[in-house]
């Protein structure tokens, strides 16, 4: 592959060979992994400020030395967008932070976002050579964030090179991570790209879902401005399939459409009492607080508050919700999860942060009913105690109810965070589009092309609920293949 050859030739550049000789592998391996500076738990639960403060220049220079610059770097294979990780890290080590950021931007449309929310411990960092020596991996995520932030805050950012305009118009449905990543790549290829967003803000789940204490909106806006500088246009308040149809897009001259409309339909458990007041989806809770500014002075949208708040689920969204509840004044914030902590899909960092912030974990418990007061507000959740049985289809040990072990817990707010389904709004509006039984758009997994030749799709509308980086990977892959198709 061209990328590999390119990576090898970059690795063979004189400065990089020099740099490798500066320290022996043993010396590099002996350096301890950097610790992320964080706001103290007692302070951070009083506000929405970003918990992870980012590593300093000095820390980054030392951490970059830990990377052995492997001839066959496995970290890259763990990255869904294939960032040339050793090249960006070695640029940090030699103090060329700008070049490090340029390297990131070659393959990632949103490096300061990925540096914050990617599950690096399951991706790039899980493949790091340091594991084989019994050491902690290089802090690739922290370094990525450092390089991207450095460039943004030092004003050295330059828009990636854009090919001359080829006169072709491309429409993107949804401005979340998949759509933004796709838009960036297509703009680089010289297309005139318009991103249509249903909400009144650009950014999709990065804005309505992920809280500011994990990903500040200003970071997302800076990345979006970067795309604008590359010529990408954004149309908010426009729902494809409703405001404009697929056919309208054709008559407007769009020759390719990428659908990245996300997994916008919250799942509930369908248990008695679930429609009581004070029980809502994590999508509703987080959207009210993150997107609509509920709880901030001068913002009109209300949000229910509770003293005893339960969050049902064990994923990142559950962690985001329970940590938001603490910040919204919950005295007791309980995470209720039907398996054990080991099976939790949430990032380790989120679990750690949640615990530091005083979140109570009730694992191996599952709600079976809610009871309300005379006004219809939830006051009690009835939990079934569980134990772990045999592994299920996901490979995780499945939870089994323990007969007769039921307890009642006082709650006045419950956030249900048990997953999302794809939003049927767009798929249903395009006739002839093949959709799975779960309402996901069926695509060729390699090219992301749907059953309609000029319609590609990616992210949660295809996957049904995954991560920011996998969505971005889909966007990249769809862009590469649509570009190929449109050149023919």
């Amino acid at each position, binding site marked *: 592959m061209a990328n590999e050859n390119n990576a090898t030739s970059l690795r063979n550049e004189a400065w990089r060979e020099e740099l490798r000789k500066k320290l022996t592998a043993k010396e590099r391996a002996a350096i301890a992994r950097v610790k992320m500076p964080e706001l103290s738990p007692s302070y951070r639960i009083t506000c929405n400020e970003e918990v992870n403060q980012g590593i300093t220049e000095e820390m980054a220079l030392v951490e970059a030395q830990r990377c052995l610059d492997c001839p066959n770097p496995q970290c890259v294979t763990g990255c869904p967008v294939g960032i040339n990780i050793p090249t960006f890290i070695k640029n940090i080590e030699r103090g060329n932070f700008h070049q490090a950021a340029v390297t990131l931007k070659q393959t990632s449309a949103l490096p300061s976002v990925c540096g914050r929310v990617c599950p690096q411990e399951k991706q790039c960092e899980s493949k790091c050579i340091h594991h084989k020596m019994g050491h902690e991996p290089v802090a690739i995520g922290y370094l990525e964030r450092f390089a991207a932030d450095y460039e943004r805050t030092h004003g050295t950012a330059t828009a990636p090179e854009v090919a001359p305009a080829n006169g072709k118009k491309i429409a993107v449905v949804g401005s979340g991570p998949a759509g933004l990543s796709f838009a960036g790549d297509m703009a680089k290829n010289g297309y005139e790209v318009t991103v249509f967003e249903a909400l009144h803000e650009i950014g999709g789940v990065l804005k309505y879902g992920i809280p500011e204490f994990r990903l500040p909106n200003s970071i997302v806006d800076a990345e979006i401005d970067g795309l604008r500088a590359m010529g990408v246009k954004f149309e908010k308040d426009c729902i494809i399939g*409703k*405001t404009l149809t697929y056919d309208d897009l054709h008559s407007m001259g769009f020759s390719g459409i990428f659908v990245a409309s996300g997994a916008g339909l919250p799942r509930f458990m369908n248990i008695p009492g679930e429609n009581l007041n004070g029980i809502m989806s994590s*999508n509703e809770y987080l959207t009210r607080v993150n997107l609509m500014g509920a709880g901030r002075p001068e913002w*009109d949208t*209300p949000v229910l508050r509770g003293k005893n708040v339960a969050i049902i689920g064990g994923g990142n969204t559950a962690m985001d919700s329970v940590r938001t509840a603490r910040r919204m004044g919950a005295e007791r914030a309980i995470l209720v999860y039907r398996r054990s902590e080991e099976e939790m899909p949430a990032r380790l960092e989120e679990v750690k942060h949640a615990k530091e912030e005083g979140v109570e974990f009730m694992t191996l418990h599952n709600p079976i009913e809610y009871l309300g007061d005379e006004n219809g507000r939830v006051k009690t959740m009835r939990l079934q105690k569980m134990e772990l049985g045999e592994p299920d289809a996901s490979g995780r040990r499945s939870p089994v109810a323990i007969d007769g072990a039921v307890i009642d817990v006082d709650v006045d707010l419950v956030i249900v965070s048990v997953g999302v389904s794809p939003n049927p709004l767009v798929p249903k509006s395009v006739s002839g589009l093949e959709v799975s039984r779960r309402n996901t758009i069926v695509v060729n997994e390699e090219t992301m092309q749907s059953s309609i030749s000029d319609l590609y799709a990616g992210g949660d509308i295809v996957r049904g609920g995954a991560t920011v980086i996998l969505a971005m990977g889909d966007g990249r892959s769809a862009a590469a293949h649509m570009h190929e198709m449109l050149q023919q």
Partner: protein
Amino acid sequence: MNKIISKEHFSEKVVKLVVEAPLIAKSRRAGHFVIVRACEHGERIPLTIADADVERGTITLVIQAVGVSTKKICALEPGEYLTDVVGPLGQATHIENYGTVVCCGGGVGVAPLLPILTAMKKAGNRVVSVLAARTKDLIILEDEVRKYSDDVIIMTDDGSYGNKGVVTVGVEEVIKRERVDKVITIGPAIMMKFVALLTKKYEIPTECSLNAIMVDGTGMCGACRVTVGGVTKFVCIDGPEFDAHEVDFDQLIMRLKSFN
């Protein structure tokens, strides 16, 4: 940003706005709604589209000032802008020739009822409209309703206009005097509940249009969930119209008080 073209006061608290929204004007059908934000820090508020003019590229909204956001929307003047208008949302009304359709609206519910009764009339139905309000000043859009109705019955609680009594009295009067094939009801939840109870007794298929609390209006949040026939539905994408005999109105009324 959507410009307000004209404004008319129906009563002290009820305002009609004609708003520039060319794409929505073109794609909307009877029964659709939009989500509106009055200002940069405003709430997202669902409003049913009362009318649209494709040529002029406008939609008509009727708003009753009851909360923070509806008051802000009602305070806007022609030439000013709504920060956001997005739509059309929801499922369009199913229109067909049923025979005789009774369309009953209470208060500002008459506004979303107007495009439906118009479409029902155009589809060949005999349309009997029953308009109800507390008092004479709150009866809105009477002339427009008359234009597409074969008969109109007005009910006021205080008897200041039309007949004295609640909406169900007027509906039952029609049911007793002629064959009714379909009833459409839009208004306060409590009113729709009693219309549904009445028509259930006579076994007349009845549709209601629900106005639930919403945030995004596109299926994302689930704030608008309602129990219909024992199953949880989202008003925004499954509705806003449902079989009135299957809707759990008591739950809906309770959920509308979430923030009280």
